[in-house]
């Protein structure tokens, strides 16, 4: 039996097991709705337009926060990675903030930015910043010195060495940072939406819990999974294309 078939069979078996368990009567169907009911509810939410509204709200938040983080983290990482003085200024500050779990900042963020969009975007940006910054710095700092020497003996100027060698050397590490950053952004998104929001997939889950509509909540959970999977798949494609020269590229799920 080939591998693909085995994998498909495992998923089908899982869904069947879930359905059987839910219908067995061991658990209340309020706590564990069968997948058929979740699918039915999902279809209703989808055709009714409600699901897409929540997906869009969440997606807009995640992408905005992630984009802001990228615009700050990548240039800052490049500068810090290539200037020892700036590295020694920025790095200790980053190390100071990095171990703080982003959820710990949520109450403060609400205090500072209110319960509207700004606090959510802040939390997402904050979470996505660190992996992107740290991986950019590492990529720039660990440029192969031999390649820099080669370029200089071939007549490259300092600026050319930077753009054509240092940045290219940093690219694989940068790609890892971007994928991790997006994963962190998703985690932060759900946390921010669970606490205070009136739309988004996190809100859908929270609101369903309050009204005991577990099936509706599960639709939100599945939608988050599908969204995260789809975005990661797009990034893996882009990465494969941009780093085609690198044979040992790992397509491992990083989230």
């Amino acid at each position, binding site marked *: 039996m080939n591998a693909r078939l085995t994998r498909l069979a495992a998923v089908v078996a899982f869904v069947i097991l879930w359905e059987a368990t839910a219908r067995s009567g061991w658990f209340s169907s309020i706590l564990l709705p069968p997948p058929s009911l979740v699918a039915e509810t999902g279809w209703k939410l989808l055709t009714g337009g409600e699901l897409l509204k929540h997906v869009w709200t969440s997606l807009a938040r995640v992408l905005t926060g992630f984009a802001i983080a990228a615009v700050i983290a990548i240039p800052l990482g490049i500068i810090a990675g290539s200037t020892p003085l700036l590295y020694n200024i920025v790095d200790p500050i980053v190390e100071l903030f990095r171990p703080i779990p982003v959820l710990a900042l949520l109450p403060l963020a609400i205090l500072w930015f209110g319960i509207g969009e700004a606090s959510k975007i802040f939390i997402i940006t904050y979470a996505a910043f660190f992996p992107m910054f740290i991986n950019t710095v590492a990529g720039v700092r660990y440029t192969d010195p031999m390649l820099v*020497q*080669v370029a*200089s003996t*071939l*007549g490259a100027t300092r600026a050319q060495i930077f753009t054509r060698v240092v940045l*290219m050397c940093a690219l694989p590490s940068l790609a890892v940072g971007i994928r991790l950053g997006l994963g962190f952004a998703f985690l932060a998104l759900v946390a921010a939406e669970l606490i205070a929001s009136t739309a988004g997939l996190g809100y859908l889950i929270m609101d369903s819990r309050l009204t005991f509509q577990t099936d509706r909540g599960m639709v939100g959970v599945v939608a988050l999974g599908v969204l995260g999977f789809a975005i990661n798949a797009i990034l893996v494609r882009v990465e494969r294309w941009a780093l085609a*020269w690198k044979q040992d590229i790992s397509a491992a799920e990083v989230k």
Partner: protein
Amino acid sequence: MSTGDIAIEGVTKVYKPQSAAPVHALSETNLRIASGRFVCIVGPSGCGKSTLLSMVAGLMRPSSGSIRVGGALVTGPGPERGLVFQEYGLFPWLTVRGNIGFGLSCRGVPAAEREAIVDKYVNLTGLSGFDNRYPSELSGGMKQRVAIGRTLANNPRVLLMDEPFGAVDALTRESLQDEILQLWRVEQKTILFVTHSMMEAVYLADDIVMLRARPGRVFATLSVPLAHPRRRTDQSFLAFYSEAEETFKQEVGRHS
């Protein structure tokens, strides 16, 4: 004065580690290499042969003395002095063509001219058909051909080679030796070639410069009185090889 000649005058190199005594990598060295010569530098590890080459390349400054290439003082790296590394140093994100054209593109050579030069060196180095491969898809011998082609495409006056065939297998090594001699005949460059193999030096060089270690110092310079093409099994080749090996062993054997 021809443009590919190298004048090394009173050059020394002392490394000063922060927490240890200074290391004399190379004591006073004087060498004059005429344009178009193929010179091999032979010596044990630690004799400063790679240091000397790096200084000619401009990647390292001498502690004292001066190096002139074509009459111009060496103050930093430059495309007129091409360097080929043992570990190839190919840009992994560029194809064979991209690597060979790198120097040309940095120096702003127009695309059409660049493509023509790249084509020439792809053919000269026997890489036709592999133009669009990435370095990770090439064998060691092919990687070194790309590195040599990339350096020659820049049209340097001097080709500096730091144990260029040290990382490939013996058979590939012999064919690369023949290829570099062929390229040298066609391109008329001055070649400064570092090796630790006396056999390689006798096969390739017009002149052999011998160094000993601790401190690095030139102790002999031999002219190789053999015409090309040389055969490793000829009596005259073997006789000269034994003589060179003897000279080397006497000095290096006694002191190391």
